[in-house]
């Protein structure tokens, strides 16, 4: 299992043109994440998305260090991003190629050389998620659930050690949300899941409640979720 460490991490953001030059997005945070399935819960704008993005260098700490499996994210960004897969809320921003098979092939560009071989490998990945019939479809014509599943397949194609998912089920209907949720929780990889779905959080091994840029509760899922429910009134 992988290990994610945050050592006195602070994140501030510049706000050009705003009333104040900077805002603190994440106050000083130290964490050691070794559980397999970790959920981040909290209100919109609390900082949980920032926390998730720190893990693969999409957000850089203003001070402090983020270390994944002994690799400092700020210094070894390339290696870290090969170990850490990321799934976003809106899959249409993540799917960048015109057709389904091309998009998965893009993920495989380091693993498989040669255009034909890569396309074959991509079809293999699609088949393992039951998406083989969509291979030549335009990404634009897929349904929301299909798109998120494809985004996930594209990320898992490279077999990352850690998967970070930032509200991956928020845009989906109940049935697709359940399908994606089940898939994520059943993965062998370490999972960091920022979510509003408390049922999903309850099925994780550890839950962190983030509010106003601070981790305010951290521990067993049922306790933290109960605390969150109580604090939300």
């Amino acid at each position, binding site marked *: 299992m992988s290990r994610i460490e945050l050592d006195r991490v602070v*994140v*501030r*953001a*510049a*706000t*050009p*043109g*705003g009333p*104040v030059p*900077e*805002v*603190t*997005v*994440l*106050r000083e945070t130290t964490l050691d994440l070794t559980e397999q399935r970790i959920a981040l819960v909290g209100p*919109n*704008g*609390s*900082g949980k*998305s*920032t926390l998730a*993005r720190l893990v693969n260098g*999409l*957000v*850089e*700490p*203003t001070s402090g260090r983020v270390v994944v499996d002994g690799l400092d994210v700020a210094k070894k960004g390339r290696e870290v991003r090969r170990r850490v897969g990321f799934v976003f809320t809106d899959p249409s921003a993540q799917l960048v190629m015109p057709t389904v098979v091309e998009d998965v092939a893009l993920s495989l560009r380091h693993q498989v050389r040669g255009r034909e071989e890569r396309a074959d490998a991509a079809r293999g990945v699609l088949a393992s998620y039951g998406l083989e019939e969509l291979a030549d479809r335009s990404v634009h014509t897929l349904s929301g659930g299909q798109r998120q599943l494809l985004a996930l397949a594209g990320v898992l194609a490279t077999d990352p050690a850690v998967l970070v998912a930032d509200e991956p089920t928020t845009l989906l209907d109940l049935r697709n949300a359940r399908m994606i949720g089940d898939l994520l929780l059943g993965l062998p990889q370490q999972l960091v899941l920022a979510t509003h779905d408390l049922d999903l959080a309850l099925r994780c091994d550890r839950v962190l409640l983030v509010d*106003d*840029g601070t981790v305010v509760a951290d521990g067993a899922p049922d306790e933290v979720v109960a605390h969150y429910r109580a604090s939300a009134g």
Partner: protein
Amino acid sequence: MTRRTPTTDVALIAGFAALIAVCAILPDIKTGVGVPYSLQTFGVLLTGAVLGPVRGFLSVVLYLVAGLVLPIYSGGASGISHYSGVTAGYLVAFPLAAALCGYLVYRNHRNATQFTLVFTCGLLSSFVFVHTLGPLNLAWRADLSLKEAFSFDAAYFPGDIAKNVVMALIATAVHRAFPDLAARRSPATTTDEPATQSA
């Protein structure tokens, strides 16, 4: 916090190239003379004003190159035919106009939200490049005198001014929504977390 990554620049360049394409293939305003008179020039100058000189220039170049094989120039005819035709001068002028417009708007990022300034930058860029190279090529290809070509071209002035008004309204709105686009050293961020103010 978040760095301005090269991938974000690539995505912006590609996104605006697609936006120009959409502007160009939306229904035309018919004028009869046949020189492009769609939202295409609006898209080109907007791209410059929003993305700045370098990204703006590259975005328009990407649009033009993709247009060689995709029917995304205004009028909808297949791409490269326009380079053999009377409108080539306008197409060649586009990236230059976008770059100049972007340079002028980005010279001081505080200016990016000033309507009059952005409007002036757009109009100036369009007169320096579009309304010179356009009619020059027209004269050469269609074997017209310069005077004839420039008077054909002048028919587009009123529409151009109107398009520049809309362009400036929208570019300033976009810069207000994303103040870090034009800011020189401040990082780009897409996280949706403004959170707390630092003490």
